[in-house]
Structure formats: structure tokens, C-alpha cells
């Protein structure tokens, strides 16, 4: 039985490997001279690195921004005032039911650029970058807010009761009992969301933010070389893989605590 399964596994491995090899051969033989020249990325390293750094900056900015938006939406939805609650809900639904690309185009060209570009430029800020961070923060923040809300809602009633019984104030209940537990529960989802955020930042090239995907497109149109996409893939993996790794470590550490 076991050896049969092993045999099947081997066959599957061969099949997959064969398929992959065929794909590689097909791709590489279809490449023309000049498509694949590894001296060029080195020449353009400044450009690519600049793009990659902008991606990091953008991601960090949107990480902070979306956390803020997410928390605001979390508290807004738990707020006693119905108007605030429903405004948050409406915003959430709107953000989650329209594509990010459309939000970026409308948000930039219709709303933010006409209203704020001048001001930002007069302050010496890169207006595209700042507006990009804001738009990405709003989008990712909406998802983050839902994740956080799910986490808080998943804390059993007994914990609220116990926290009240020991004499915590409403703020202390959140601070010491609810939030730490909710955070542990949503950690994997949160990490997934931050990985999405980094990947989604590539869309900001449509409003002209010069992040790494934008720069690789510029590179490719200047050199007609396709090798630029390799550093592009690696550039994103270098940012997202560590988050996935750290998240799975933390998840294992917190696992036994709930």
C-alpha cells in the first residue's frame, strides 16, 4: 500500500517536473536575441533599486495608514451613534465592492489630484506618492477593519464579563483583555493582508507612482529586454516571503495560548 503510494508520488513528481521543464524550454527557445541580456539589469540597477525602495516606502506608509483606517473603522462600527456606524459600514461596502484599480483612477484623477496636488507640491512632497499611500491605506484599511472586527467579535462573552468583574474600566477591558486576544486570533489574516498590501502597491503605477513595477516597465520599454521581470518578481518575494515566514512562526507560538 505504502510503496504503491510512493510510486504514484514519484510518477506525479516526474510529470510535474517534465511539464515544468517543457515550459522552460518552450519559453527560452521562443526568446529572441536581445530579449535576455543580463548585463543590462546591472547597468540599470540604480533605477530598479530606486523603484524597489519606493515600493518599500509606499508599503510602510500604507501599513501605518491602513492600520489607522482599520482601527477607526473598528471603533466607528462599535460606536453608539448610528450615523457614525452606518457611515463606516457604507464606506466599507463601497471599498470592498469596487476594484482597487478603479478606486485609484477615480481617487487620484477626480478627487485627490485636483484638490491637493498643488498643496502637496508646495510643501515639497511627492504628491503622487502621498496620494498613493492615502488611497492604498483606505483600500487596505477597509479589509483590515473587517479582520479586526471579526477578531473582536470572536472573543467570548465570558471574557468581557470576567474583565468587568475584576474591575477594569471599559478602556482597560479593550487594552488588556480583548485586544491582545483578538490580535492573536487574527494574526494570520493580518499577515495575509499585509502581503496583499505589498502586492497591491504595484497597481499604483497607473497613477504614476514610480515604484518597482513602474520602473521595470520603464526599463523594459527602453531596453526591449524581458530579463527585467526577474528582479521584479524577486523584489516582491523578498518583501512578502519574510512576512509569511514570521507570521507562521508567531502563529505557532500563540497557538497554545487560546
Amino acid at each position: 500500500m505504502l510503496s504503491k503510494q510512493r510510486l504514484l508520488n514519484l510518477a506525479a513528481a516526474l510529470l510535474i517536473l517534465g511539464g515544468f521543464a517543457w515550459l522552460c524550454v518552450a519559453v527560452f527557445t521562443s526568446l529572441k536575441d536581445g530579449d535576455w541580456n543580463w548585463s543590462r539589469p546591472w547597468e540599470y540597477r540604480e533605477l530598479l533599486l530606486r523603484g524597489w525602495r519606493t515600493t518599500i516606502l509606499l508599503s510602510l506608509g500604507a501599513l501605518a495608514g491602513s492600520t489607522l483606517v482599520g482601527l477607526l473603522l473598528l471603533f466607528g462600527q462599535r460606536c453608539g451613534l448610528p450615523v457614525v456606524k452606518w457611515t463606516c459600514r457604507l464606506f466599507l461596502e463601497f471599498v470592498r465592492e469596487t476594484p482597487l484599480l478603479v478606486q485609484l483612477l477615480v481617487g487620484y484623477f477626480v478627487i485627490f489630484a485636483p484638490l491637493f496636488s498643488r498643496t502637496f507640491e508646495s510643501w515639497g512632497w511627492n504628491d503622487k506618492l502621498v496620494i498613493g499611500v492615502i488611497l492604498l491605506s483606505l483600500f487596505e484599511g477597509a479589509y483590515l477593519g473587517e479582520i479586526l472586527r471579526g477578531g473582536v467579535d470572536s472573543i467570548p462573552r465570558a471574557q468581557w464579563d470576567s474583565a468587568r468583574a475584576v474591575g477594569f474600566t471599559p478602556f482597560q477591558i479593550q487594552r488588556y483583555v480583548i485586544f491582545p486576544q483578538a490580535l492573536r486570533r487574527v494574526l494570520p489574516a493580518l499577515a495575509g493582508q499585509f502581503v496583499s498590501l505589498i502586492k497591491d502597491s504595484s497597481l499604483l503605477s497607473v497613477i504614476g507612482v514610480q515604484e518597482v513595477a513602474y520602473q521595470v516597465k520603464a526599463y523594459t520599454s527602453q531596453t526591449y529586454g524581458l530579463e527585467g521581470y526577474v528582479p521584479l518578481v524577486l523584489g516582491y518575494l523578498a518583501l512578502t516571503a519574510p512576512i509569511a515566514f514570521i507570521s507562521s512562526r508567531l502563529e505557532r507560538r500563540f497557538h497554545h495560548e487560546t
Partner: protein
Amino acid sequence: MKLSVTSLTKHYGAHVALQDLSIEVPTARVLCLIGPSGGGKSTFLRILGGLETPSSGAVSLLGEALPESADGLLTHRRRNGFLFQQFNLFPHLSALRNLTLPLEKVHGQNPTEALSTARAALDRFGLIDHADKLPSQLSGGQQQRVGIARAIAAGPRILFLDEPTSALDPEMTAEVLELIQELAAEGQNIILSTHEMGFARAVADHVAFLAAGHIEESGPPSQVFGNPTSPICQRFLSRVMRY
């Protein structure tokens, strides 16, 4: 401990949990609430403990009216201890931290004081070896004992226990009841609800039988268990005492 309740009513929306409940307990160390499930024991305890507010009626405990404002209720909760049937402990904190956190943040002790108070409380109940364990690493009985240690660490005026052993097997039930009896013997004021009739009879100074949101019978255990007058109480007792 003196307790006096007149016409206490509590409803949740249209649902009535306590209906015109009155009881007079002139003096008692340990007050036991017994009665069928859904009779209103938990609701009554939660009101006495300041976790819930009455819909109407007057409650006076230790000679003082129960506070009505949010601040007053917070103070009330801080001066008393409360233990639920289960899931009392904060699962992300060690047993020790479950005790020190409220001591520091609620009772204003500095970390060193809190640590020695907490260790003393755990030690007293033979739990010091479990101080650094998480609640999930403790048995149900140990969890309840740590819960009681947390509830009494700051020296509460009254300790409220809502069916503290209902989720436990017989052996763990015994270890928790022993601890409660010990506290009672040391003079701790206790109000508890329980299905352990033998325990109520042995430890309580005063027993109240609650059914359908109403006190049906109230008095010293010898009277409530030996010579109940209310037919509902007689029926309940004869049924639960049969086995």
C-alpha cells in the same frame, strides 16, 4: 453580611428574569442560592455583583444601597470578587499574571507589591507550582481555584460565586468546594449559587430557593432543607435529593 431586597424586577426586553423578588437576610456569612435552572440565580447574583442593573426595585447590601451610576458600579465591582461557572481566566496570561494585572491596574499596587500579593494568594491555595502556566495548561478545577485566588487577592468585601463547580467532574468539584469552605471558615463573606445541596446545607448560614424569578423559600439551611413550606421547593428538593 446584611442583605435586603424589595420588589426587584429584571427583564431583558419582553423576557422577565426576576419578578418582584424580595428577600431579607439580617445576618449571614455564607448565603446560598439554590433552585432550578433558569430560575434567576445568575441574574440575581449579577445584579448583586454590579454586573447588571435592576429594571426596578431596591437592593441594599451591607447596609448600603446598590449604586446606580456607571462609576458607582465600577467601584462596587472593584470592592467585591466575582467568579463565573467557567472561562474566568484570561487565556493569554499566565496564572500569576491573571492575578497581578488587576492588582496593578485596578488596585494600584506597584509591580513588586502585586507580585508578592499574587504569590501569597496562589500559595495559600496550593497553586504556586502552577504560577507560570497558561490557563489552558491547568485542569478545570485548578482554573477555578486560580479564579478564586484572583477574586480574593485584593481582599473583597463579598465574594460572589455563580455555580463555581457546575462545569467540573466530582473530584475537581470536591477540591473547589473544600477551598470555598476554607474561605468561609476564615470569615469571608460569600454569596453563591450552587446545585451541590450537601455543600449548601453544610456551609451556608442562609439558603434562598429561587424559581421563576422569585424567592420561594428563605431561611437557615436546617429550615429550608428540613422543613420547607413552599410546595415548589418541596418538589424540587425531593427530586434532587432522591439520588
